């Protein structure tokens, strides 16, 4: 279908104000936060911002009839080029559709539209003493729709798991425009084993199977107490060992985060008041629950960590806790600060390895950085083996870009070799699709056939998750 005609049709269906078609305006949709999008210009033909299930369905029907690719998009904070139209077509920006439809306090669940921002949802839930536990570093900007599509998790996954554990049901518009509800059409049950679990199929589907238009989310009572233990290690190897020792003592913290030396430096450069001690590694153990158990667990962790750490701080002051947690949350971006003429790039940034291999992984990544002459900043959710590596390069220097690409490939292969995965939470998108066979072997065939069944014309977010079948 001719672009001008497509735009006209969309404007007829949605109204002009929900269609973005000016070439300059479209440019802003050529990227997400991935390195891949920085290196390429993936221009959509048109962007739409629907605000109802019917509007989404109308767009899908049009696209389906005319074979036009559709890429759903939340806030574009993904790091995999997932929300970028690498084959052109329509980008469907769902982030303005940010209504919290219902907070069902009695049944401990909420109904939200895809564009609701994670932090805003939790602000609203806090009014009722509840919370949605997954806590991505991008909380202030990412959408619940994007979290569901990527099965995001974050700083508290070690105790509370990933988004999927909280999704009771979804409303999904399929590629042909049909609307379905998973998890029971009328259901407000908080558990159900009825039927094949389609909810789980769509969670983490990265926009390749359909558009998520409503989410029924399980929420939890918000714990009354919280505290953070900060432990400072002279040697990087000691940090993972300390984590295992805390587990052995029968404690499951709500978060265990690591910052290596460069990450510590980046946080201090971001905001000097956070004032982290200089060291090879810092661990932040967060505990939550009832105040008495928080106190007990916090002090116990302090005792255990002290065996290896040179300095241990037990913080319950809200201001100090907020500072420490903020430091950890911003390091993803603040990593850029360690090199005045450089920037961190989001690539090879999300491997997850077995707990027993974390120390080895960190050592190997450091060695790989040296091999490729690239400074790497490491941080991440060490409690579940999820290591975030930030290569810090000058992205405007072609040799550095090439070296970074080699480093990233090495990191991904390292993860698989050590029995881990190329991505713990950020997803595959366009940037890790080439490892699908390496990680999943024959299972990829089944994935492809599921995709084929739901999206026979291949219009939903093409080029993501797995590459085209090899001839």
């Amino acid at each position: 279908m001719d672009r001008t005609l497509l735009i006209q049709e969309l404007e007829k269906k949605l109204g002009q104000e929900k269609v973005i078609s000016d070439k300059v305006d479209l440019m802003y949709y050529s990227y997400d936060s991935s390195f891949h999008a920085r290196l390429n210009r993936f221009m959509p033909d048109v962007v739409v911002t629907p605000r109802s299930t019917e509007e989404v369905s109308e767009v899908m029907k049009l696209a389906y009839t005319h074979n036009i690719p559709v890429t759903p998009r939340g806030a574009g904070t993904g790091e995999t080029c997932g929300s970028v139209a690498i084959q052109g077509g329509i980008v469907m920006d769902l982030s303005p559709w940010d209504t919290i439809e219902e907070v069902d306090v009695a049944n401990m669940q909420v109904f939200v539209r895809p564009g609701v921002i994670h932090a805003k949802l939790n602000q609203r839930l806090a009014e009722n003493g509840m919370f949605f536990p997954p806590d991505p570093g991008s909380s202030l900007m990412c959408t619940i729709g994007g979290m569901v599509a990527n099965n995001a998790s974050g700083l508290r996954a070690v105790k509370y798991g990933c988004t999927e554990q909280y999704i009771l049901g979804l409303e999904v518009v399929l590629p042909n425009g049909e609307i379905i509800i998973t998890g029971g059409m009328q259901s407000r049950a908080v558990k159900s084993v009825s039927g094949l679990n389609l909810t789980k199929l769509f969670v983490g589907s990265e926009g390749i199977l359909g558009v998520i238009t409503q989410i029924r989310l399980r929420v939890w009572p918000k714990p009354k107490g919280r505290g953070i233990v900060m432990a400072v290690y002279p040697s990087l190897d000691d940090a993972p060992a300390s984590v295992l020792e805390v587990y052995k003592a029968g404690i499951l913290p709500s978060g265990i985060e690591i910052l290596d030396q460069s990450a510590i430096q980046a946080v201090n450069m971001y905001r000097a008041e956070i004032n982290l001690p200089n060291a090879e590694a810092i661990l932040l153990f967060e505990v939550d629950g009832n105040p008495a158990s928080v106190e007990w667990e916090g002090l116990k962790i302090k005792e255990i960590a002290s065996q290896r750490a040179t300095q241990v701080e037990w913080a319950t002051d809200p201001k100090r806790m907020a500072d420490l947690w903020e430091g950890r949350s911003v390091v993803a971006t603040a990593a850029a600060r360690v090199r005045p003429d450089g920037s961190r790039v989001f690539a090879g940034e999300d491997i997850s390895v077995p707990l027993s291999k974390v120390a080895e992984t960190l050592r190997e990544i450091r060695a790989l950085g040296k091999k490729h002459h690239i400074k790497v900043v490491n941080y991440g959710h060490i409690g579940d083996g999820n290591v975030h590596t930030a290569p810090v390069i000058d992205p405007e220097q072609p040799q550095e870009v090439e070296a970074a690409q080699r480093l990233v490939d090495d990191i991904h292969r390292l993860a698989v070799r050590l029995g881990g995965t190329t991505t713990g939470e950020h997803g595959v998108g366009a940037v890790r699709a080439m490892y699908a066979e390496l990680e999943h072997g024959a299972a990829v065939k089944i994935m492809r056939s599921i995709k084929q069944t739901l999206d026979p014309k291949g219009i939903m977010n093409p080029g993501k998750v797995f590459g085209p079948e090899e001839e």
Partner: protein
Amino acid sequence: MFKDTPVVREQIKKCVRCGKCRSVCPIFQVYQTENYSPSGQVFLVQMLRDGELEVSEKVAAKASDCLMCESCSSTCPSGIPVPELVAAARAYIGEQRPSAGKDLIFGKLWTNPRLLRKAVAAAGLADSLGFRNIARALGMTSILPGDLPQAEKILGKIPRASARTRIKTVSPAKGTRKTRVAYFLGCGTDLLQPKVALATVEVLNHLGCEVVVSPNLKCCGVPHLANGQKKIAEELVQHNVNILHKLGVDAVISDCASCTSTLKGHLYKDWLKVKVFDLSVFIVEVLGIPSEIRALPHPLTVTYHDPCHLVKAQKIKDQPRQLLKSIPGVELKEMAGADTCCGGSGTFGLTHYEVSMKILEAKINNIRQTEAQAVATCCPSCITQLSYGLRESGLNYPVLHPIQLLHQGLYKR
């Protein structure tokens, strides 16, 4: 050259497009799409720099979608000075298309009399003020065409007395002279809020300051920078620095958040050798809050609005509040989102009336909920914008600079 400007060369690549800035940008809050975001502004500058985009009317309009409020830069984990990048782009656009600024003002605004009337009312500019004064207040004189027939016709031209005409060049300290300071009388205060200026001088005198108001000082340059007139801004900097250095003062004080943030910021950094203070900081931290403040005749509940150029650009938050709390009879009641932008910001309300009003609406709602009797803030542009918003919503609160309340506490019975 634009491409070689340090900020353009070094900062763009540091943007990882994490989107944290979206969460605080007042313009993004209204439109909610990436083409109205700080991260988008950084990308626009990059595309211009790399020649992937040519200057056009559309590009000029996109670069104009920014209040220069620094909400983004003060939260960006990479520390990217987005407004500085936008200013660089506007300057470049101005060079490439000298008419771009005018196109925006005259094309988008002056051709729409309905919008113009509303925008001018919002900017606190009575029709009788005269266009030349409006232009001066907004620092636009230099970017407007010579005779302005169109605008003058619409607005009439009766001038009004500004603060400058009522303040002496040197006002002596009351009692022993503690210090000699230059009062940087900004265009906004001078023309739109002359009462603030009079209160500032009198209170400073009262607290032992000899106050110099040089008649030769010109606009600080920020409106020019914001409107793509970088060269003029730089000329203004040199002019003002020369004068300030000759005044033999210990400090430069201003009651205008935008002026102090400009005087402390990158434009003046390498040139100005005299220390610059926001008025409330100078009173609270240097002069000391006077002990002889009398109670206001009637108790007054006041809510305080943080100007972006104070709280974000200069991280000044406590001192104006301390000043307010020191006045017996004033009860300070915080509003939700005290530090969110009011949408005013110099010429922005004129060129982007509708979005400016949407931003303002949220602010007014927050003010309303405090049930305060007055609003205080430290920026003439915010005072004007908030007064307009309150009037339009049928609320009768006065909007005052804290110095006016202090002045009352010192002088009124």
